[in-house]
């Protein structure tokens, strides 16, 4: 086999003749993004996201198809290429009508996966639903009583026949779901948390689960902060609160009550612990001398990581600015926990920044029918026993079934989303015309949403290769080209053999398995 030498990002490499630039780069461990590249059908040269620069000619060439040539000098990652890829992604996004996350999830400060909870509830899988909820919310039952539910304000069903009763559903999950939680084996790291309100409890919960020992210092004689003192029993029954607190205690979190942290103790905590999280409510006069940056609202932190100017110290909840919304504090506790974990593991501290989200706004009337294809045309269920009692099991199932499933089934494995995030793409940059109306087509096991399609052609090539009788084809050409089944046959007719394969190969959420 003939070997040739090329240079990629100033590193010389020897590759077998016939290798593509992409393969050569991969050999060097350099990643080049691709959307239309598929191992089985080869390159299609449609997305052009894999562009790299040939320094000799100054030309931009698709690396997935271009063969390496002796003496080539390739750059894969400079500013110009970044702009090329970002522009390409933004052009694709301007014609990509779909939501990565459902509007309710985006509205929720804790970004709880609401549609997934609803699907599990409608199927009667209450325990699994609780697992989903607790990924983001440490005190689901509590929140089920007191949350102002910004999620429900964003629900797509709201203007049509009433928002899905997300908050009550979550309360049901919190009170009735049963899961066994076991912390990971101890890492040896210790974190001190000042304050046991929602922010502190949330941080303690997520860190303890990861095997990090949390010691919570609470100045009052009881755990829960404002949840205990500010909310009347008839709004939030104390037994509900205490049950969820004791669940956190059971994980191994130590609570030190009647312990107020002052400057001296704060400094000692920094020595005794790997990290300190301040979750002690609105900052007191004395705290302003702790050596942390602050302003009239509270401590100043990085908005993604909650890290203060002291890298070992994090601050959340009302310590940043006075808040009466528990869910916000809870979300911050969770995100700070993620930052602390990153720091303790020597990773870059990024927190849990909101990932790129494709969004298309309000539904238009014809789209409602498309969404109803996997929902029910029923009015909002009101709890028969009154709001305080909440939903019965049957009511939960009916109400959860009303969810329109606005989330994308590929939210966690969509290349378009990942790259858009990586390249800071702005979806609205080229939003010059009215968006197309969303359609949904259902197969036994997969779903096709043509407006999410980026016309990469992988599905067309796969169905041809596997000799589907109808398969997928390009219909029309140019900007208006669509991918569809010939002769207007159904998707079920089009994909008799390799539906799941095609869904998995789709680089976006246009084709996805039904079950997320």
């Amino acid at each position, binding site marked *: 086999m003939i070997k040739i030498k090329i240079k990629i990002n100033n590193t010389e490499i020897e590759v077998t003749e016939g290798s593509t630039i992409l393969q050569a780069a991969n050999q060097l461990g350099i990643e080049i993004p691709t959307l239309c590249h598929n191992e089985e059908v080869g390159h299609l040269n449609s997305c052009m996201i894999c562009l790299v620069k040939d320094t000799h000619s100054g030309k931009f060439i698709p690396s997935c198809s271009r063969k390496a040539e002796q003496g080539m000098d390739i750059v894969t990652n400079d500013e110009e290429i970044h702009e090329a890829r970002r522009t390409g992604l933004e*052009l694709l996004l301007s*014609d990509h009508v779909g939501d990565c996350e459902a509007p309710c999830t985006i509205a929720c400060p804790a970004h709880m996966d609401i549609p997934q909870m609803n699907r599990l509830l409608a199927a009667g899988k209450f325990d699994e639903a609780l697992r989903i909820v607790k990924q983001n919310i440490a005190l689901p039952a509590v929140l089920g009583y007191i949350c102002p539910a910004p999620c429900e304000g964003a629900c797509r069903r709201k203007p049509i026949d009433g928002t899905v009763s997300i908050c009550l559903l979550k309360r049901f999950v919190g009170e009735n779901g049963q899961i066994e939680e076991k912390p990971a084996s101890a890492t040896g790291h210790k974190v001190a948390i000042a304050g046991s309100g929602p922010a502190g409890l949330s941080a303690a919960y997520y860190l303890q689960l990861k095997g990090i020992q949390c010691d919570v210092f609470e100045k009052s004689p009881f755990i829960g902060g404002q949840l205990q003192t500010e909310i009347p029993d008839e709004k939030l029954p104390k037994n509900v609160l205490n049950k969820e607190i004791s669940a956190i205690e059971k994980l191994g979190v130590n609570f030190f009550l009647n312990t107020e942290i002052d400057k001296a103790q704060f400094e000692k905590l920094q020595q005794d612990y790997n990290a300190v999280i301040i979750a002690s409510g609105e900052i007191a006069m004395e705290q302003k001398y702790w050596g942390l940056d602050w302003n009239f609202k509270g401590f100043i932190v990085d908005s993604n990581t909650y890290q203060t100017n002291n890298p070992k110290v994090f601050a959340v909840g009302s310590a940043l600015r006075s808040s009466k919304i528990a869910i916000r504090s809870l979300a911050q506790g969770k995100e700070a926990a993620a930052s602390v974990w990153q720091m303790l593991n020597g990773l870059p501290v990024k927190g849990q920044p909101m990932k790129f989200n494709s969004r298309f706004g309000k539904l238009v009337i014809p789209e409602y029918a498309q969404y109803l294809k996997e929902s029910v045309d029923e009015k909002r269920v009101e709890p028969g026993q009154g709001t305080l009692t909440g939903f019965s099991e049957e009511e939960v199932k009916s109400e959860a079934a009303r969810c329109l499933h606005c989330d994308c089934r590929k939210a966690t494995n969509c290349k378009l989303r990942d790259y858009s995030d990586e390249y800071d793409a702005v979806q609205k940059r080229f939003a010059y015309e009215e968006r197309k109306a969303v359609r949904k087509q259902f197969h036994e096991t997969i779903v096709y949403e043509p407006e999410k399609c980026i016309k990469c052609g992988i599905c067309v090539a796969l169905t041809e290769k596997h000799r589907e009788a109808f398969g997928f084809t390009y219909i029309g*050409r140019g900007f208006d080209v669509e991918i569809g089944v010939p002769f207007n046959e159904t998707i079920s007719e089009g994909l008799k053999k390799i539906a799941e394969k095609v869904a998995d190969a789709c680089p976006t959420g246009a084709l996805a398995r039904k079950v997320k």
Partner: protein
Amino acid sequence: MSVDYKHIDQIVAEKGTAKNSLIPILQAIQAKYNYLPEDALRYVCKKTDITPAQLVGVAGFYHQFRMEPAGDHIIKVCVGTACHVKGAGRVYDAFRRELKLEGAQKTDQSGKYTVSEVSCLGCCTLAPVVQIDNITYGHVQPDQVNRVLDDFDIQKNKKKGKRFRTPEGKEIKGEIRIGLGSCCQASGSAEIQKTVEEVVQTEGINVNLKHVGCVGMCHQVPLVEVLPDGKEPILYAKVQPGDVQGIIDRHFQPASFWGKLGRALDQFIDKAQTDEHWESIERYSIDVREKQVSSFLGKQIPIATELRGVINPVDFDEYLRHKGFTALEKAMKMPPSEVIDTIYDSGLRGRGGGGYLTGAKWIAVDVQESDTKYLICNGDEGDPGAFMDRMLLESYPYRVIEGMLIAAYAVSATKGYFYIRAEYPLAVKRVNEALKICRERGVLGKNSPSKIDIEIYEGAGAFVCGEETALMASIEGNRGFPRARPPFPAQTGLFGKPTLINNTETFAMIPYIVQNGAEKFNSIGNENSKGTKVFALAGKIARGGLIEVPMGITLRQVIDEIGGGVANGKKLKAVQIGGPSGGCIPYWLADTPIDFKSLNEIGAMMGSGGLVVLDETDCMVDIAKYFLSFTQDESCGKCTFCRIGTKRMLDILNRITQGKGKMEDLDELEKIAHWTEKGSLCNLGKTAPNPIVTTLKYFRDEYEAHINGVCPTGKCTDLISYSVNDNCIGCTKCAQKCPVDAIAFTPHEKHSIDQELCIKCDSCRQVCPEDAIDVAPSDSPKGGEKNPKIL
């Protein structure tokens, strides 16, 4: 319509069952049913190896194919560049209004007519042009569409209808060199020929009657050339059947008939000069014994068109008499490498647009080792406003074939193809006939010295198929998707084999070079571009047509000396060269020489040969938008930057021409243009931004004016309003012309225009005898000042 399956069986039997038979099968089905009935298509899938996915993918890709039944008659409104600048859009709208079409509807309620826009009918000098079935109407104005339809009703049943007509139902006189170009045939030259034959016969004159190909002087159609024995040939322009007697008498009658002859001649000159035939915005004044003819031809050097006006296109023996196939003979006595060297040394560069060195391309194919090598003549000329290849294929098919055979010998090609646009039926017919005769005469086929056969593959309506990799995909029976190069066609081409693909005009140059040597060819032109280039000269030019000029000639020489300057005494504003891939060259750069390098340096490109002259009344933003609409529509849709980039640029241009633009849009336009150029897969996308880039570069102030709410030339209808000024004498002409009754019929009173109803079709302004119609920016500037008049 029920499908006759036996007939489909016949089609399949004739065309074959493999994938590369798909397009010919679909063409045959559509020829029968006027569209592609789904039942027939499903049946084809059953009877062949073609899958439903392949079939639907291909049928939907090519614009020739219709999936829905069409009306009994198809109205094709030409929206080529020349027609566009002369108001084709308004004509199209007028047909739609007349037939009461709404939304996406293309066929009228009764199912009689289907209206469609076509990119170029190649009759640029008669713009705007409309074709209904086989009858062509020139200089059609929006208010004349009803008369066109009336005339068509009368003509359609006539067996031998006059095929080229004015909206008033009169014939348009085309070229009368007894031309056989498609424009000439359409223009009724047959009628002239008949008259000539009659006169010649009754008077017993012994003259040779000749059919010749296109001469290029389309502004003078029909042309008759008379060659009296031993005297200078004389060319007569715009001849009508009634004039024939006079012309013949002048040259062939005995002296005693001079008195009669004089009268006939006077009569002829009168007719030709009064130009009575249509109300058009363009009038061509004609002097029969004109100097113009000599200046039109004077600067030209015919190489590709060497035999123009001399030979009958399909007369093999006549081609032989004019040294036909002697270049082939000469070449075949040389070693192939020497032929390639000759072409290489001549400096010939591809005439299709890219300008790649032809000799280098030949070498690349020659060095490949393969039992099978293909040769393709690219005749998929899709540039709106260009018809050089059509003329060459129609007029000199043997010449192109000879060029191909020389190439085949040089690179050892084993099989040849003509890829010709389906929109050029006459070219297909002629080339077919010529190929058949060549086979009969032993020039072509297995037993010929060349041992090669050539067949025709008809395109199906996709501009992108002019791109070589897309063209090959099309012959293979696929959607015309280009692919990345390398590998180049020379390495991996048609069916994966080494393939030489050259443009029609390039092939037409080859026999000349072989015959006359490389030095003779490269002595023409300038240091960076050798030889000549054929252009279709059209737009706002006094004398349009097909011209062949030496490389290095300046744009100004072409416009002023060959074209007779800008029409109607208007000022030159810009020249659009190279069509949708080219750029707009402003008047202050008119001294730029026409060669590959100089044109690239100013941001334009040679392109395939469209040369559209724009005058001071043309809006440059509108021109950019026009070309972008074209490329956007013709984008194959494969790669991101071309598919969506062109659309977003068009979105911005639409905003700007609607007065909704912002200054930031111009920066964004430049950025998208930049990345569409850098990031597109093929040259369609890479060059699509050129019309925008050049107009932004040279006419940025016009873009800014639009953003400020003013279209300086009053072309963009969203930015203008029509009003009546005090010159109005109340003649009611405008009220009669107005297609939407926006002007009340009030004789002897000053008219007024109802702004709510007005559709800005410009009919009133054109008909007004008193210059009483004002066009002004529609948004009155605050402060109540009177709007400045634009026109």
